């Protein structure tokens, strides 16, 4: 009897698999989605994954895909874990006729793992504002894109914001105490070198304090901050670490408007747990928060109201900072796909074609308006040598209820940042026997 039940279960599973595998499909664009909806980083992983997925679903539902070719999101749960990310990469890279067209790992650790692998497999990676900063040098990192800005540009832009806007002049940075609270990983360590260079240049006193994964325990760090009394704190955190840091800062009554997060430390999830105490907290950003753009209305109409969304319960949260970030990432990817189709004059593009699309990407303000995203983000133009794009960063502030962009977009200190990018990418090229290509 029992054997019979088991046999039936087995049969059902097998048939289900064969049906899935056997159905003949039209050409689809496989864009794997490396999600993390579980684990200590899920609070930040979920909104991004939803924004990313919803934009592609919108294109499929409203426009019938990109130029009539449907997008096949191949979701894979990474849990922000490098080993699982690697497993996901191997699992999804051969999906569908097109194979994986690109990866958006949303984890600096996974990006570091995938940079050499994807370069060999000829699959482009868009590590949007994270990952390896020196990948901005397209001469060395042919397959990696990290527009619209890098960590180093951002660190420098934040320092410029403090110097130019908050103090009267950049020269007044001299003697200021700036402390960085960072996630003890490749991600958190990224800005340190830039900030050290800048502290030499401007004469501020820089100190870096590490917080270990996952960052729930930060008492010792904040005790030290209380003793040092820095003038400014920069936060390079992710996941649960952000909310803990903001709560700790509130509990030592650190002035919130002197506390500036990286763009990964500035979302609703990070500030809400601290309540009104987080009011005034600042963070970097490169796109607008909120849901009052035409594209959001379309998403509600075509994705949520028709029940096509991956996470239907998310409807009320559409327009959160990280949701919009997933959305802007998906927008740039789909524009790159259009570009690739145009360049190669085919709708059945493969991963190397998409790389050319990314390299020729040019999304200006007219284009944004056309897409229903007028004023949503800065214009981006990628070239062969510059995979970072504009590199400009704005500052947004939490008013207790909403995030609002309160400044212009700051230019980073190109002199410092470009020198570091050049050094680091050349070292990478030397270690891995890469001859930088010429970009003329």
């Amino acid at each position, binding site marked *: 009897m029992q054997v019979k039940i088991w046999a039936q279960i087995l049969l059902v*599973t097998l048939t*289900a*698999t064969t049906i*899935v595998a056997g159905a003949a499909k039209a050409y689809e664009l496989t864009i794997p989605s490396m*999600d993390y*909806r*579980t684990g200590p980083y899920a609070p930040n992983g979920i909104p991004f994954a939803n924004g990313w997925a919803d934009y592609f679903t919108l294109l499929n539902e409203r426009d019938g895909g990109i130029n009539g070719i449907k997008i096949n999101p191949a*979701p*894979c*749960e990474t*849990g922000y874990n*490098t*080993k699982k990310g*690697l*497993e996901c990469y*191997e*699992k999804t*890279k*051969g999906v569908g006729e097109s194979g994986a067209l690109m990866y958006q790992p949303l984890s*600096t*650790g996974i990006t*570091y*793992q995938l940079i*050499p*692998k994807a*370069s*060999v*497999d000829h699959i482009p990676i868009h590590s949007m504002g994270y990952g*390896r*900063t020196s990948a901005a040098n397209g001469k060395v990192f042919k397959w990696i894109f990290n527009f619209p800005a890098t960590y180093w540009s951002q660190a420098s832009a934040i320092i410029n914001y403090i110097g130019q806007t908050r103090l009267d002049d950049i020269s007044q940075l001299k003697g200021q105490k700036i402390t960085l609270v960072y996630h*003890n*990983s*490749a991600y958190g*360590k*990224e800005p*340190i*070198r830039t900030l050290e260079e800048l502290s030499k240049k401007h004469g501020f006193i820089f100190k870096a304090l*590490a917080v*270990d*994964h996952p960052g729930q325990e930060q008492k010792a760090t904040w005790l030290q901050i209380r003793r040092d009394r820095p003038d400014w704190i920069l936060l390079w955190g992710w996941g649960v670490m952000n909310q803990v840091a903001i709560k700790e800062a509130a509990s030592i009554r650190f002035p919130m408007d002197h506390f500036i997060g990286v763009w990964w430390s500035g979302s609703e999830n990070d500030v809400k747990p601290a309540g009104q105490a987080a009011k005034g907290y600042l963070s970097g950003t490169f796109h607008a928060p909120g849901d009052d753009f035409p594209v959001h209305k379309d998403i509600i109409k075509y994705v949520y109201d028709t029940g096509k969304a*991956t996470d239907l319960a998310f409807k009320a949260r559409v327009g959160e900072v990280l949701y919009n970030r997933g959305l802007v990432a998906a927008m740039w990817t789909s524009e790159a796909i259009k570009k690739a189709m145009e360049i190669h004059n085919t709708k059945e593009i493969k991963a190397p074609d998409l790389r050319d699309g990314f390299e020729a990407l040019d999304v200006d303000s007219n284009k944004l308006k056309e897409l229903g995203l007028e004023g949503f983000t800065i214009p981006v133009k990628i070239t062969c040598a510059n995979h970072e794009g504009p590199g400009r960063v704005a500052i947004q502030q939490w008013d207790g209820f909403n995030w609002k962009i309160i400044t212009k977009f700051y230019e980073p200190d190109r002199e410092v940042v470009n020198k570091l990018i050049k050094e*680091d990418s050349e*070292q990478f090229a030397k*270690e*891995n*026997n890469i001859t930088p290509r010429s970009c003329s």
Partner: protein
Amino acid sequence: MFYREAGEFKVSYQDDQAIFPIPQDRWFVLTLVAFCYLVIPFLLNDFWTKAILLPFLVYSLAAIGLNILTGYCGQVSLGTGAFLAVGAYASYKLMTSFPELNIILVFMLSGIITAIVGIFFGLPSLRIKGFYLAVATLAAQFFIIWLFYRVPWFFNYNASGQISVPPRYLFGYQLTGPAAPVEMKYLVTLTIVVVLALVAKNLTRGRVGRAWMAIRDMDIAAELIGIRPLITKLTAFGISSFYIGVAGSLMFAIYLGAAESGETFGIQQSFDILFMIIIGGLGTILGSFLGAAFLVLLPIGLEMMLVDGLNMSTTFAEHVKFVLLGSLIVFFLIVEPHGLARLWQIGKEKLRLWPFPH
């Protein structure tokens, strides 16, 4: 019917002391090894190699290492992740400082360096036992990981603190780095694991292994019959760390290609490997393989079944996987507290009597 010893006569000591005294076992293992060498390399693809076979082999080796220490010598250790890290960073430093060094030599030297570190952290075991020793090794875990974060010399002063493997060749084929053929990665890892597993099996059957087991079963009694606890415990720490160190360097150089001390070799890693040997069977070499298979292959298999087979969402599947895996661990430990290796043993006993159980 087919699996019985009746009619087999052992006429020499050599026959009597063979690893697999029953010919069926011997043939089975030989066929398995032949299959791994002659058939699997032709079936490999990227996913199977990089996501399934390499982690399985590497974790098996690490589990053998921990099994020597915990299963055979009875010294509980929670520092496995740190020793893996020592192996990985040692091989990175060796590869970048001496680019001409043969890669196999690099693996072995990393093992030896880890063995030295392991012996050092094994010193407290002469005074403390059980949970207290576990806490002391936990200190090793935190200290070593911290060290690799704080001292930039270990990661050659690069900005991110990550180490990534330079391309290395063996017999003219690329072995490390993303461009290396998967067959090469698989065969080299397999060979190292097979050879070291054979060495471990023989070690545990010989004088050294018997001394370890005597210490494990009752250290005072062992001392009374002339086993020196100092030498025995420290050899266990040394050899165990050697295995874990080699596993760590394989994990870094062949399987992952890049690593970061806390993320790759954190405390979770120590627990995972401890679970492997507990589920697989303490004090058995077979158990190390079974435990590694259980914890490496089962999650991937479950995910494939739930997501691709039953079309669950990845999030839901992830949660179901946690629940299923947890309950399976509890289930196996209730059914057989001595681990999967013991289940296999019982199965063999039953098979001997089959089909006439009375």
